[in-house]
């Protein structure tokens, strides 16, 4: 009753509105379990192998304890003597329980001898699997972190190349601009040349036309100015010239 009152005093405010019989119980419900270590004492390290025993149940230390005084057979003499004492004084009475005890103990011994190593190997394998899994988790975490470090370092080295990257980009852009400018310059030049060529061709055409026209007009005037008398005289002159020439040629030959 008193403990219940104390528990009710400890209960949070919301729970105090409940009836006293309930609030003590609900405190247990509202308390969280397993939030931390139950005992803060340091954990003793677990030994890797169990203590050495002889005949399955008697620790080796007992034999070592008796060895200096009694030698090797000491503990066995002690055991036999103890058993005989218990049986002869009827402290331990031989009943049917002993027989059933022998049956179950022999069964236990047989099972342990036959299946012990297999079960032990299985248990060790379970532990090993657990360890391997934990180790794999640890290693994968480490390797992923190492990869992260490597990639970070690579990124950091890339930062230094940034200057060259921008330089190259700047060069590219300048080249493109220059190319564009030259192209435009060429276009301008071509256009201007086209116009000038046109003017030159026009001029030539005009001159040629004038020349042709002049030649035609001169020819026409000359042909009109030639009278028939002049024509006869020129023909006669030509014939006389030819005769002279032919005479000269005959003379030369």
């Amino acid at each position, binding site marked *: 009753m008193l403990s219940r009152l104390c528990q009710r005093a400890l209960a949070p405010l919301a729970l105090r509105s409940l009836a006293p019989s309930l609030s003590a119980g609900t405190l247990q419900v509202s308390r969280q379990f397993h939030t931390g270590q139950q005992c803060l004492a340091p954990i003793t390290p677990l030994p890797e192998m169990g203590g050495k025993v002889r005949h399955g149940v008697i620790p080796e230390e007992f034999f070592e304890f008796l060895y200096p005084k009694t030698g090797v057979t000491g503990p066995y003499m002690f055991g036999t003597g103890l058993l005989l004492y218990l049986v002869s004084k009827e402290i331990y009475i031989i009943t049917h329980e002993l*027989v059933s005890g022998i049956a179950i103990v022999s069964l236990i011994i047989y099972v342990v001898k036959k299946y012990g190593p297999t079960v032990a190997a299985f248990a060790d394998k379970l532990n090993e699997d657990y360890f391997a899994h934990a180790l794999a988790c640890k290693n994968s975490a480490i390797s992923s972190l190492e990869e992260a470090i490597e990639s970070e370092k690579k990124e950091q080295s890339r930062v230094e190349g940034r200057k060259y990257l921008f330089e190259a980009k700047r060069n590219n852009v300048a080249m493109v601009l220059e190319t564009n400018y030259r192209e435009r310059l060429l276009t301008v030049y071509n256009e201007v040349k086209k116009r000038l060529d046109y003017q030159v061709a026009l001029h030539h055409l005009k001159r040629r036309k004038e020349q042709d026209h002049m030649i035609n007009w001169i020819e026409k005037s000359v042909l009109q100015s030639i009278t028939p008398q002049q024509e006869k005289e020129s023909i006669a002159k030509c014939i006389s010239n030819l005769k002279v020439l032919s005479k000269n040629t005959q003379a030369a030959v």
Partner: protein
Amino acid sequence: MIPNLFEIFATPYLLKMPLMWLAVMMPAMVLFTPSQHLVTGRYILLKKWTMKQFTKQIMNPLPTQGHKWTVFFMTLMMTLTSMNMISLLPHTFTPTAQLALTMALAFPLWMATVIIGVLKKTTRSLAHFLPEGSPTILIPALVVVETISLLIRPLALGVRLAANLTAGHLLLQLMALAIIHLPTPMWPATVAVATTLMLLTILEVAVALIQAYVFVLLLSLYLQENI
């Protein structure tokens, strides 16, 4: 002098102090030690592995609401197994052979499953009284039979465990008694009885494990019907 064979089932007393509570608690205290280490030795490791397998086996068919009962069922199984196994050693007391203990476990737990079923899924739990696909003409008889089967469940649960263990231990004691008394008149019979005793011991070990498992399994089945 014929010893009273049923003396082994009498509640132990030491100087008028009842030791029943010690007999019930001792197996669990002795056999099941907690460990603070993350990586344990072979014994605790195997125990953990066994319990995990049994937990998966028993709690898998249950719906999620039923998983609240996991800790309880597994603890019950561990307790019953340890009590049964330790009682096989000579000069030990079998708590689970006492009807008081088994009925005290079976009856309230069965009642809990029935109450859960009636409160949460009234129609469904009542529907269990008539199996599906039963012929119409048999319905009245079937309902009566199913009701009786439901009501007999706690009795069956408790008595099954107690009777199995009592019978097994009694047989072992009888055979041992025969071995003690037989060699003088006829020793070949002793050999035969000794062989039978060995086989019976093996059977008793199996029964000890199976009965605990069956107790918890049946409870989980009753829970499955009602949750």
